[in-house]
């Protein structure tokens, strides 16, 4: 197959053509943001002292942690109420930033259904959407939220076409957004081909570049949660490729947000390898003055449906971030198994995580042979896929990515997206680190395979059984199924 995509900066002409012909006309609220210069001026004004990118960079420089709760509700009043509640009840300011998410109807471009969801929410007196419908509400409502919040804002709009959402929230002074085409495709898409998706994502990135060049630094989420169950090398690969794609469009800051697998050593190693490779590959491609803020996104697999087990998850994920030397601690909450986070749940999570930071002081995972070995393997694997990608793209990372997916060098296990091979299979080892059960076409080097086999053997020894595909399936729920009280077992 041939792919009509290159990792090249959109020209102003291209950008504004897309803007005026494809993006702004998508919905009536596009009109209010027609003047980009004015948008930037207002955004600058609104985010004095609370720019998302600068706040993250400042904490990274100081070696301190940032707390990032998440929130999304159908109506603006619910949004403001929730944000205010958490900020007042958790002491998150000035060490916190927000991820606010839009609803899935909006993300899928079905603004009519989103509008119906707003109406339905008003009728029922309840939140009937899984996020805030950015496009239906438009820039003025978004600015109300900006003004109500003490902490900087970021939008999670992960799906195929978020361009109008991005335009609106950037104009409202939210200085982060999604820039993760791989993540988006793997987790949210069904059919869109990668080259088409990359074209769309170049727009978001270029828009961020323009804001950045005009004094409003933008720091997109560069997420690698993927399907929730993926090898660390696949996540590092994802982060590095996404950085290169964004950097080309003028993005200078990246919240390199790793999906955690919940093995502390493996996740720590992943964060270190990614940062190293981000620096190295940006240098190689000539992207200067980049700032990477390493963050952790709590395990994106099934969560337990009970308070205390959820607290264990919140604590362990936050601890991996803290001990692993990550700056950003993205937070889920005790509601995870039931619904989008409530304000109370999020306030609780911030408090819990903040107290862990207090308790730990400067404690970090100590340097060790074990850690270095894990880093070595992840680096070896990530490099193998990266280098094949670049080679296949003849030096172009966008083209290479399309080919890597086609070839199954990049792959994931349980994705709704029809374009990944879905041949790779993951399983946990005795220490619950994520390992390959089936390599699919992923070009894992021999040494790394041997290490992988060794780790699988450890688990087989522990359980006294051969690992089969049944374990692949049951491992998906290892963190969510509550123990059945023993006296009632046969």
């Amino acid at each position, binding site marked *: 197959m041939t792919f009509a995509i290159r990792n090249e900066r959109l020209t102003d002409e291209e950008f504004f053509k897309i803007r005026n012909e494809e993006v702004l006309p998508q919905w009536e609220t596009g009109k209010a943001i027609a003047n980009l210069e004015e948008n930037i001026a207002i955004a600058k004004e609104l985010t004095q002292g609370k720019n998302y990118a600068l706040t993250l960079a400042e904490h990274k420089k100081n070696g301190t942690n940032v707390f990032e709760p998440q929130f999304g509700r*159908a109506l603006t009043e619910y949004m403001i109420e929730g944000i205010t509640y958490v900020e007042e009840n958790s002491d998150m300011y000035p060490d916190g930033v927000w991820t606010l998410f839009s*609803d*899935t*109807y909006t*993300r*899928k471009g*079905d603004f009519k*259904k989103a509008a*119906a*969801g707003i109406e*339905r929410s008003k009728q*029922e007196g*309840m*939140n*009937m*959407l*899984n996020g805030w419908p950015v496009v239906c509400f438009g820039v003025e409502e978004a600015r109300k939220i900006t003004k109500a919040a003490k902490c900087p804002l970021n939008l999670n709009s992960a799906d195929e076409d978020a361009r109008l959402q991005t335009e609106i929230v950037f104009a409202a002074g939210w200085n982060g957004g999604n820039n993760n085409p791989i993540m988006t495709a793997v*987790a*949210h*898409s*069904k059919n869109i081909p990668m080259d088409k998706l990359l074209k769309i994502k170049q727009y978001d990135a270029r828009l961020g570049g323009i804001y950045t060049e005009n004094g409003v630094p933008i720091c997109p989420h560069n997420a690698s949660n993927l*399907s*929730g169950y993926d090898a660390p090398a696949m996540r590092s690969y994802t982060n590095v490729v996404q950085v290169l794609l964004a950097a080309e469009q003028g993005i200078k800051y990246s919240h390199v947000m790793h999906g955690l697998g919940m093995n502390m050593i493996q996740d720590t190693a992943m964060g270190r390898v990614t940062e190293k490779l981000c620096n190295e590959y940006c240098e190689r491609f000539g992207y200067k003055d980049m700032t990477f803020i390493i963050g952790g996104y709590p395990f994106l697999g*099934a969560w337990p*449906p009970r308070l205390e087990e959820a607290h264990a998850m919140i604590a362990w994920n936050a601890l991996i971030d803290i001990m692993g030397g990550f700056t950003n601690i993205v937070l889920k909450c005790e*509601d995870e*198994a*039931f*619904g*989008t986070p*409530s304000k109370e749940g999020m306030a609780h999570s911030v408090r819990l995580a903040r107290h862990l930071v207090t308790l730990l002081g400067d404690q970090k995972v100590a340097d060790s042979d074990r850690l270095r070995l894990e880093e070595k393997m992840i680096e070896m694997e990530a490099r193998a896929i990266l280098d094949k990608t670049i080679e296949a793209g003849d030096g172009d990372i966008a083209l290479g990515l399309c080919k890597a997916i086609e070839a199954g060098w990049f792959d994931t296990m*349980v*994705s*709704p997206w029809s374009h990944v091979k879905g041949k790779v299979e993951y399983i946990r080892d005795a220490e619950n680190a994520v390992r390959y059960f089936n390599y699919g076409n992923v070009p894992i080097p021999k040494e790394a395979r041997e290490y992988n086999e060794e780790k699988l053997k450890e688990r087989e020894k522990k359980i006294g059984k051969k690992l089969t595909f049944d374990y692949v*399936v049951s491992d*998906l*729920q290892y963190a969510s*199924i509550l123990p059945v009280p023993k006296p009632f077992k046969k």
Partner: protein
Amino acid sequence: MEKRQANKSVVIGTIGGDAHMIGAWVLSKAFEKAGFKVAYLGAVVPQKDFVNAAIEIDADAILVSSMYGMGIMDCEGLREKCIEAGLKDIILYAGGTVAAPLELEKNWPEIEKRFEKIGFNRVFKNTCTADEAVETLKADLGIE
């Protein structure tokens, strides 16, 4: 009218704009293991695809998964589409985290009422295991 003969066949998928396919996938594995014929449609499945697949494999039941919160809205009208297609008596199950409002998700009797009203035979919480789903359908079909 005679009750139709169960032939151990189900349609499974995640409805609407919902990309969560893991639960449905786990279900499909369990039903296959239990000897069912399974039409597994993956995620982001429109109502009409459920109906078409049900016709194609002559399904006993359609198992609709909905995780992302808009399940109530997305499921409205499916029973009507089934009736139009001549599948008046097909069993309809829904399951997952079907409601966006937390107050509703935690008020299960209300959810059951709502799903009954829109023509579903049962609705399952996301604590339902795949085995429980299999057992329940078998019981409803009166098999094994």
